[in-house]
């Protein structure tokens, strides 16, 4: 009888550990990777595109290429045709540009590696941040505030930690302090369903 009970206990313990593994691990959206934990993720890209050259040296505005940023939830990786708009003529003989031209000629999308990735349960919108204005009517953010000095690096790097605490820190800043019994006006809402729905 005793051995039966013991085996029963062991069985339940084994079953529950198996169950919790089955319940909480892969396949779904497990997302505790080091990449988004601390920033600094700097993957290799299929073409060595230099932000420093374009945005830094030549001073092309970010939204010239990432034109979806002000209209959409996503900033958008520019389509190859945007690159070709200039590079049909400019430096078309350079080996890097040739790689680009090949992709374009074969009508293949360039498999850029995603740098700033948010989990699927976070719904961030570029549009509202890019268009955010302060009391004076000036834009509240530059792209660099979240993406770092992109114009100084070659390939893009995850600069910010992109953790919730980092988001909330800014959302939670008081724009106007609490006064006359009125609650403080904050930069942005911090309720869960601002980003999670």
């Amino acid at each position, binding site marked *: 009888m*005793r051995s039966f*009970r013991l085996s*029963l*206990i062991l069985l*339940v*313990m*084994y*079953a*529950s*550990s198996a*169950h*919790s*593994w089955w*319940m*909480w*691990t*892969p*396949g*779904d959206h497990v*997302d*505790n*990777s*080091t*990449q*988004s934990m601390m920033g600094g993720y700097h993957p290799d890209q299929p073409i060595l595109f230099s932000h420093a050259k374009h945005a830094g040296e030549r001073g092309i505005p970010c939204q010239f290429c990432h*034109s*979806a940023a002000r209209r*959409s939830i*996503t900033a*958008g*990786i*520019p*389509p*190859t*045709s*945007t690159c070709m708009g200039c590079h049909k003529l400019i430096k078309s003989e350079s080996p890097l540009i040739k790689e680009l031209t090949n992709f*374009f000629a074969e*009508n293949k*999308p*360039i*498999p*850029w*590696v*995603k740098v700033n*990735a948010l*989990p*699927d*349960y976070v*719904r961030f*919108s570029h*549009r*509202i941040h890019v268009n955010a204005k302060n009391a004076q009517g000036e834009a509240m953010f530059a792209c660099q505030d979240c993406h770092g000095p992109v114009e100084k690096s070659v390939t893009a790097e995850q600069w910010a930690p992109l953790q919730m605490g980092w988001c909330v820190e800014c959302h939670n800043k008081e724009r106007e302090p609490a006064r006359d019994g*009125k*609650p403080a006006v904050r930069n942005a*809402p911090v*309720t*869960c*369903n601002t980003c*999670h*729905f």
Partner: protein
Amino acid sequence: MATEHADDELAKLERLSEVYAPSGDFERESSARDTGPYYAAAEEVLPELEPEDPRVSGAKASAEGKAFPVDRRDFMRLFSMGAVVGATACVRRPPETVLPYVTQPIDMVPGVATYYASTCGLCSAGCGIMVKTREGRPVKLEGIADHPINQGGLCGLGQASIQGLYHPERLKSPLLKQEWTYTPVSWERVYKVMAERLKNKKRVAIFTGGATGHRHGFFRDVLRAMGSSEELLYTWEPNGLHQAMAKAHHVAFGEARIPRIEFQEVQYVLGIASDIHEQGISPVYHAKGMSQGLSYQNGKMGTFVQLESNMTLSGAAAHERLVIAPGSEALAALLLVEILYDHPLAKGSNEERRLIKEVLHEHRKEIAGGWDALGISQKQLSAVADALVAKPSLVLAGGSSAFTAEATKLQLLTVCANILVGAYGKTLILHQGWHTNPVVSGDVQRFIADAASLDAVIIIDSDPLFTLPAALHIKELFQKIPLVVSLQAFPVSSDEVAHLLLPAHHYLESWGDEQAVAGLWSMRQPVVRPTTESRQSEDVLLWVLAHLGKNLPYADYLAYLKERWQDLNRVMAPLVGFDTFFQAVQRKGFITQFSSQVVGELRPLATHLRGELFAPKKDALYVVSPLDHRLHDGRGAHLPVLQECPDGLTTATWDSWAAMNPHTMTRLALKRNQVVQIKTPAGEISLVLYPMPGVHPQLLVVPRGNGSQDKRNTIARGVGVNPLALYAGEFEPESGQPITAATEISLTGTSTMYRLATLQKHNDINSRGEIIKNYSLAEMQTREHMTKDLDTVPDLFPTLAGAEHRWGMSIDLNKCNGCGACIVACSLENNVPQVGREQIILGREMQWIRLDRYFAADVDHPRVTFQPLLCQHCNHAPCEPVCPVFATTHDPEGINAMTYNRCVGTRYCANACPYKVRRFNWWTHAWGKMGERPQDRNPRALNPDVTVRTRGVMEKCNFCVGRLREAKHTAKIAGRKLHDGEVQVACQQTCPSEAIVFGNLNDKFSRVTKQRSNGRAYLLLGGDPEHGHYGLKTLPNVNYLAQVSHQARDEANHHQPAASGHGEQSEHA
């Protein structure tokens, strides 16, 4: 833990036998309830209907085999120890790639939805739809707000059609039958084979579904060009109401038109077995009209009285419902005409009255002896007639519950009645904007006569084998035709007789047009590139013609359409160039130009009404097979979201059933869930019984739609039974519609029990207090001017302040008719998975909004109320404080928010919720595939703006917060405030009867605020604040508007009606 102690505990555990299986049925015993006047199922008032053992064969998974020799608490202790061991896994996310376009389409921004106007293609109503596409992929359909037919609404079938587009079981390529197998072939081969086999053939036919635009004309042109005859185009629609009405008006006025109802003018509607809220002529148009024209508003309310033997959604929505004998609809109409004819206030010219007199004379025998057979008293019908002539009114008759041998006679008699009440030209419009008939009446009969002589037939978007009675031997007829080609957007049962199976475009991939109402042209345009190797049906025909060397002068169907639309351009906008015109229509979705045409005088009808009218026998049982209000004739059966959307009245999912009067069941000693054998001379079926209050005691109702045996259709296969096996395949002589009603049956109970997956009692809150409030019209008129403040409740909670918005919803119980479109829209908007029959039986349905259906009063004459129930977004929500991880929290804007990634699945919130609206994910639904389990759904149809939930997570309605955020961002960027009505939640947007209003409760002038302060508003489980009872004090942001009835409240709620019947109650009407 000391060893002895643990042993003691274990010894105790061994004596206990069950751990987590519920000890009984999910459904509570009917004796242990206090439900007020309302009951959710017939067995609550007739307990003898309850089967002895609730664990019936279908519910294998529910209760058996769960016994486990440890009790729940100890199981959890042991379990949690083990869980610590397991919770150590760490996973690194692999690098992801982002693939931009090579060349991005102009006007296309990734992440921003693009909308295209088109026309729904699932039935002949021709509703305009706005297709939301993301990155070139349709994700949601919504009605076009200013479309004259659907006015923004859309029915469940239309909403669900998007699942058909992405359905993985669509054919991937053409299939050619060789010997006994089908081999995939190229389209080029198809054209060659068809050209070869059709060469020099004179009798080539096309068998197709209904259409109101240029499609049938094109088919005729093709047949002519092929050298065949345009006579060989056969059209078939199972909804025969169009044919019967068109035929009757053709007989009566010389024009095959279907009158349009001018709802603004109507105050009193009599339906005779009308299915205006189900399929009808134009379900969304009629639901909108009934809602705007007849429902309670400012102290006034129209009246809708329904005479029927089946229990339909229309009968449920009616203010008064009189039960007539099965198949006696025409008799009822005749007796009504007789009463109206003699009425002093009756209208109609002398000539018209003379012709009607002829009709009455023809039927003097039935008039004398008909009352007994009809089942209602002369007094009751006289009261209805009094109201009909006194008010702007009309009589609406017919529908799929009344496809008897007298369907056209019923319509002709209704024409007489409408003349006598003065409906034509006032409430019924025949001279302008009438509905068109999508098919040619009698085509099926013609086909049956011609079939033997045909050389080939091409079946396009129709399923004759499934939708026609088996007794017609349609299969054998097709098998004798040398070449059968089946061109379908989705594989259908009829494919089994085809030699060539060709994948056609889904309507969202096709060009087309519809003219569902004369003068209203709707455009259909492709909104997505073909998702399979399909072709537009019309283009296939053009290619075949080209291979035959008999070209029509069109490159494709679009060219043909453009040529036709050039004529419309000349008529409708002669000053605009064609390209501008065509693009403008494409953008808007439709164009109207109504012109008036004179309607002829009434013609002699008596010859068309010869013959004695049907009167049912007193002791026989009859069967009727109406079209299912969700699945139609079965065209929606392959869409999981529709199968899972509950039927309005039975709340059954994933099945078909035989609904029967509960008293008849007790008389025959039949039980709920018992399988019965239904026999007619034509055939027999076995089906599970459902006790349906309000059905005539001599009637058995078996809906159509389910029962597909097609192996390729994994969603519909094996679900339910096709009742068309019961019918002899006779045709109604005038309209040529097969008879699917009033057929005598014999019924035997079997010993098999089968669990019907009904939803009504899964989240039963009926015993918790006053769920439905009801005021009489007189009572309401005194309450109309009072202002309610539902939000002031004495309690210790701090008041919410400071936010600009407080989102609220108001649901009008008077308007809801139980169609279920909200459920479908919500499921598609919010990526709610479908779980399948077994999971539903286990109580694991996932829908965020449900439709509770309640009966009140006598089971033979019940009053029905539908209550859409979603998360009430309580300001003092019981679910919030119990969450150990703060996964459900309150948003300052009043939304009860659910944070999925925080949820650990304790389900405390679901326990705490008094409204039972929380849904737990028992599975991660395999989004990547479909077919192994019915619930698996194709990920391409997901809404990318809403998180897909996984196993172990609680979810519920979130007031479409994604839509809210989108609109708020747009307003903020534009530097303005949101205006009322700018954001519509998915259920509200689609609701065909406009029962749901959503908006900002902090805005004094918003519609929702006005409704919330109305004398009709109440909070669910909110007690009776007028008398100082505040109920649960949950303070929901959702409020209901009480039902208003013409009867006094006590009378309406009374369980057993007075012996004199319902005659007195209609005096208010």
